[in-house]
């Protein structure tokens, strides 16, 4: 395999953005800050269409949505992109990213499927589409512009007191680079899309043994309650493997991974009575743009970090981020929300 196959072309500008169901639900601030960074800081053109829908990837991977249906849904998103006059698809979600690549690949190998889907789409919606010139994941764009972001940064990922680089562990979503390794920076073996960003922002990236292991999200594992233990076990393998390096944060580019690496730390703390950091506060889990937003000096509550299970204060303190502790549960209108209950083991 040539080294060039570990590189990929990432469009520079003019994106049609498609959102992530999980992020919209669990940490909508991440998508907001991504759009804000791209539009306001990097001055890129990113358009959206309110009519775009879920890619139905979760349904597809759990055998609820048939292949023909998901291909037609994907075709409709592309039709919306075509109608808006754009050619570069920017995908927020790793599951969707895998789906778009899979469908496009299927059509390359089986043009008759594409013809059929075009017929379905026309019949159901009277829409037509041009296939995207470039499909980029949100983390690809942050990777592409990591140097520009680092130049504008207000904070670095270093310990503000000692000047030591913070230790970051990354986790790449399986559907980002394991389905089509050529579609991911560094492929499946040499994942660089996040570690290069982390080091650019001043931290050191830890290559822990189980770095390429699944986070435990795995649709089949968590959807069925009976097998949800598999999901927790996978996460545990990850945490056990990274804990000896005493990481200051985890960065993940997949909505599901970020979600489960975050929530399962609480689950494991309740099951086993332990956390994977020395202070008992857990290891904060951030997405690529949450991390970029932090170094750019966005208000952590504006990014929505309080919506995470593992609270971000330990990281904010290390970075020396100036923030308003009282603003954590205040709404935009200034109303104070009730404080959530705090767990006994995973400290807040």
């Amino acid at each position, binding site marked *: 395999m040539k080294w060039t196959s570990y590189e990929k072309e990432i469009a520079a500008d003019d994106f049609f953005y498609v959102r992530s169901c999980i992020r919209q639900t669990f940490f909508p601030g991440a998508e907001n800050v991504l759009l804000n960074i791209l539009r306001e800081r990097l001055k890129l053109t990113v358009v959206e269409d309110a*009519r775009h829908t879920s890619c139905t990837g979760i349904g597809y991977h759990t055998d609820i949505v048939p292949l023909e249906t998901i291909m037609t849904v994907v075709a409709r998103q592309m039709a919306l992109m075509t109608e808006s006059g754009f050619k570069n698809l920017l995908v927020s979600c790793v599951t969707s990213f895998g789906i778009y690549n899979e469908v496009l690949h299927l059509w390359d190998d089986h043009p008759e499927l594409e013809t059929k889907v075009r017929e379905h789409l026309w*019949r*159901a*919606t*009277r829409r037509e589409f041009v296939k995207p010139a470039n499909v980029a994941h949100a983390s690809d764009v942050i990777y592409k512009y990591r140097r520009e972001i680092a130049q504008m940064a207000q904070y670095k990922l270093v310990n503000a007191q000692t000047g030591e680089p913070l230790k970051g562990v990354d986790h790449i979503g399986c559907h980002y680079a394991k389905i089509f390794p050529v579609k991911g920076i560094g492929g499946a073996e040499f994942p660089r899309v996040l570690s290069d960003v982390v080091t650019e922002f001043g931290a050191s990236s830890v290559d822990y043994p189980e770095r390429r292991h699944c986070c435990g999200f795995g649709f089949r594992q968590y959807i069925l309650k009976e097998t949800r233990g598999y999901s927790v076990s996978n996460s545990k393998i990850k945490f056990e493997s990274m804990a000896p390096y005493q990481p200051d944060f985890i960065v993940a580019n997949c909505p599901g991974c970020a979600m489960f690496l975050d929530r399962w730390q609480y689950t494991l703390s309740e099951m086993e009575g332990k956390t994977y950091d020395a202070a008992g506060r857990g290891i904060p889990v951030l997405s690529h743009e949450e991390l970029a937003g932090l170094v750019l000096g966005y208000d952590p509550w504006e990014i929505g970090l309080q919506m995470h299970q593992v609270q971000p204060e330990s990281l904010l303190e290390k970075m020396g981020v100036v923030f308003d502790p009282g603003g954590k549960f205040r709404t935009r209108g200034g109303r104070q929300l009730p404080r959530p209950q705090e767990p006994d083991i995973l400290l807040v």
Partner: protein
Amino acid sequence: MHTKKIAVIGAGPAGLGAASVLSRNGLRVSVFHREAAAGGHLNDWAWLFPRFVPARDVAVSMAAETRQVDFHPGCHIAGVSRHANGQFKIVMPDGQTEVADALVYAGGFRVFDASRKEELGYGIYPRVVTSADLEKMLAGEVPFPVELLQQQALRIGVVHCVGSRDEKSGNRHCSRMCCVTGVKQSIELRKRFPNSRVTAFYMDMRMFGNGYEELYLEAQRDWQVLFVRGRVSEVAESDEGRLRVKAEDTLLGRPIRDEFDLLVLMVGMEADLPKWLIEDLGVKQIDAGFARGNDELVASNRTPTRGLYLAGSCKGPLSVAEAWNDGQAAAQQLLLDLNR
């Protein structure tokens, strides 16, 4: 006699109601209307519930109630500002301005754009029409799909709550009028196509006005309209060009599939307030986006801005009669304040 000058924006039922009271009380009244003819949405409707009165006649008799007014048709107001002396400066589309001592805003509502509910196939399949389209067909202004007239046993579906009580389209509110409109149109369709069968899909039927409940019963008793409680989830086209509908019969707890030759979507009413009303005149909005008076009970026509009054369905969905009365009420409120 007053020499005060009052501007009324909008000449639908509410605007005409306000203009009739103000003009009969000797005030100088200017009426600005974005369409060419007064009447508002009445001009888009064939017959009115619950007694099938021609809508045009109602518009004409409402306009006849007004006395001398300065009517500006085809005049979509570009902006309104309020001077320190309390007067309103109204900017017309051609840039000309007019000054008024008080303003009644009766700008009405907007009909929901059914193509936003793509799953219902409006704008995709020609046999999916809205309640507004159907009125034009019933009035003979727009032809029914030709092949429809040739069918012997027509199957017609009526879909309620399109763009109303629907968080996905950003409209949590109930548009109120569509329930009885659906009942009225079902009866009209049965009269027009005696061999047809009409099935109406509803969430709740809200028959709040005089004669509405009776009309609802009449539709079932005399016109055999079948009411199925359940929301239509999807519309597709069959090979024969009929409309294949999926829904849930929630009273029976069973999913259903059915085919229709014509599907009528009961489109809701949306807020349609101009920017200047909110930004320059300080009118507040309710969650659904409609204008909010000082309160909902005794001062709904008043606003925090002195001299500015709200009338009609700019405050939320109203029937023709309610809008007319509300316009008159706003004018009465204005007169009381002037004489104070």
